[in-house]
């Protein structure tokens, strides 16, 4: 069931893989904009630089929340890759995100406050779809355990295509890509200064970057689950999905938070519920 080795492998290797993905992301984004772009190792240099800077913090609790954010995100991913319960993974993910919000709220800054509020709205926007994804996985494979879902021979994607599309929609929010990068954005995109991370600087900002790498690897692992029946197709799907997100990021302007929340919920309600209902009737009820 739970394989601790894979959890440990995730904790140790995910920052390296996530950082490389972020580097390739920046390179491809630059090419899409007709620029040369930085080296694919640039994210590592950025984080290395942040750890060389002075640790100027607003208050001590802020560092505590930043560290909690890393720990719980690493825990989320480790639990996922160890083959744990998908529902627990989803809850741990929310908890990790809440620590980032608390960190932003702990500093007395209007930009940080707006960022924290928007981060909460984003959590509200994606949470229903993420939970429906977990439920959909159960409906398709009769198990909430990642180890069972990954090992299944059922073509999960064919049973829950609607849920997959809904998940893709909220993945844009989770990866902090346009049009849904309303609480904080990467690279040179600016929004309300720097949203949730406005008041973080130096090493604590470095930790938040590393957390984002953990999160990226974990989310791409989630995409993998839909195609778990064939590792080759799954690997291709993960790459295609990420390139698709990059394309969306570079071709869309940022939307208002109202649209982000409404559309995510509408997608969750239509795609998620309809897909589950169809599965229910086809199976003659959830057994």
């Amino acid at each position, binding site marked *: 069931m739970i394989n601790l080795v894979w959890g440990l492998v995730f904790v140790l290797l995910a920052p390296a893989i996530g950082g490389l993905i972020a580097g390739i992301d920046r390179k491809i984004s630059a090419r899409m904009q007709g620029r040369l772009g930085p080296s694919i190792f640039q994210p590592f240099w950025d984080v290395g630089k942040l750890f060389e*800077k*002075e640790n100027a913090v607003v208050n001590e609790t802020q560092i505590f929340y930043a560290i909690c954010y890393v720990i719980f995100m690493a825990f989320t991913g480790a639990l996922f890759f160890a083959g744990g319960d998908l529902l627990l993974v989803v809850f741990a993910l929310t908890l990790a995100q809440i620590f980032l919000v608390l960190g932003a709220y702990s500093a007395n800054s209007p930009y940080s406050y707006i960022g924290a509020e928007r981060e909460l709205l984003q959590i509200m926007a994606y949470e229903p779809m993420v939970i429906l994804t977990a439920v959909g996985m159960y409906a398709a494979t009769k198990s909430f355990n990642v180890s069972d879902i990954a090992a299944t021979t059922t073509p999960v994607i064919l049973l829950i295509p609607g849920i997959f599309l809904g998940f893709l929609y909220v993945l844009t929010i989770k990866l902090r890509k346009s049009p849904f990068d309303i609480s904080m954005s990467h690279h040179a995109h600016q929004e309300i200064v720097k949203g949730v991370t406005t008041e973080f*600087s130096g090493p604590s900002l470095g930790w938040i970057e590393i957390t984002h790498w953990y999160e990226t690897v974990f989310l791409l692992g989630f995409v993998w689950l839909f195609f778990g029946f064939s590792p080759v197709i799954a690997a291709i799907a993960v790459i295609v999905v990420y390139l698709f997100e990059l394309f969306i990021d570079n071709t869309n302007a940022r939307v208002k938070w109202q649209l982000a929340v409404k559309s995510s919920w509408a997608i969750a309600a239509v795609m998620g519920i309809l897909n589950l209902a169809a599965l229910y009737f086809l199976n003659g009820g959830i057994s």
Partner: protein
Amino acid sequence: MTYLAKSPWIIHYDASSCNGCDIEVLACLTPMYDVERFGIINTGNPKHADIFVVTGSINEQNREVVKNIYDQMPRPNVVVAVGICATSGGVFRECYNVAGGIDKVIPVDVYVMGCACRPESIIDGIVTALGILEEKRTKMVLDADAEKEHRHAGLRPEHISQTGGAH
């Protein structure tokens, strides 16, 4: 070389500039010059920035703002004064409301000449600033080590008894 020189993040502030230099600063970000290929990012946040790029001269309205932005930046940091107005006040030097260049308020490390200065000279100024950033980092580390050593030396009990002169 440390990581600092490979990933300089910039905060750009327009202190009463005519916008000529600002447009040239932004031109550095376009596909033509693409400074992001050196890891240079224009952040909007002093707390994330390493290099403070200021255009225009100091007047009573922006004196506090420039100082505030400088104080919010985590050390080590450098200041690049872009354009002749930021350097000395330029043609506005004699104006009743202009105090002069940026160095009237905060220490400036690199002066970039020109009216408006060319993107090439701005990039050159920032590359020069990277060397200074490196020096400041080395000095910061040495100072921190010296302070730590000093503190340890002061706390050691046998050291205190030997120098106390009570024997």
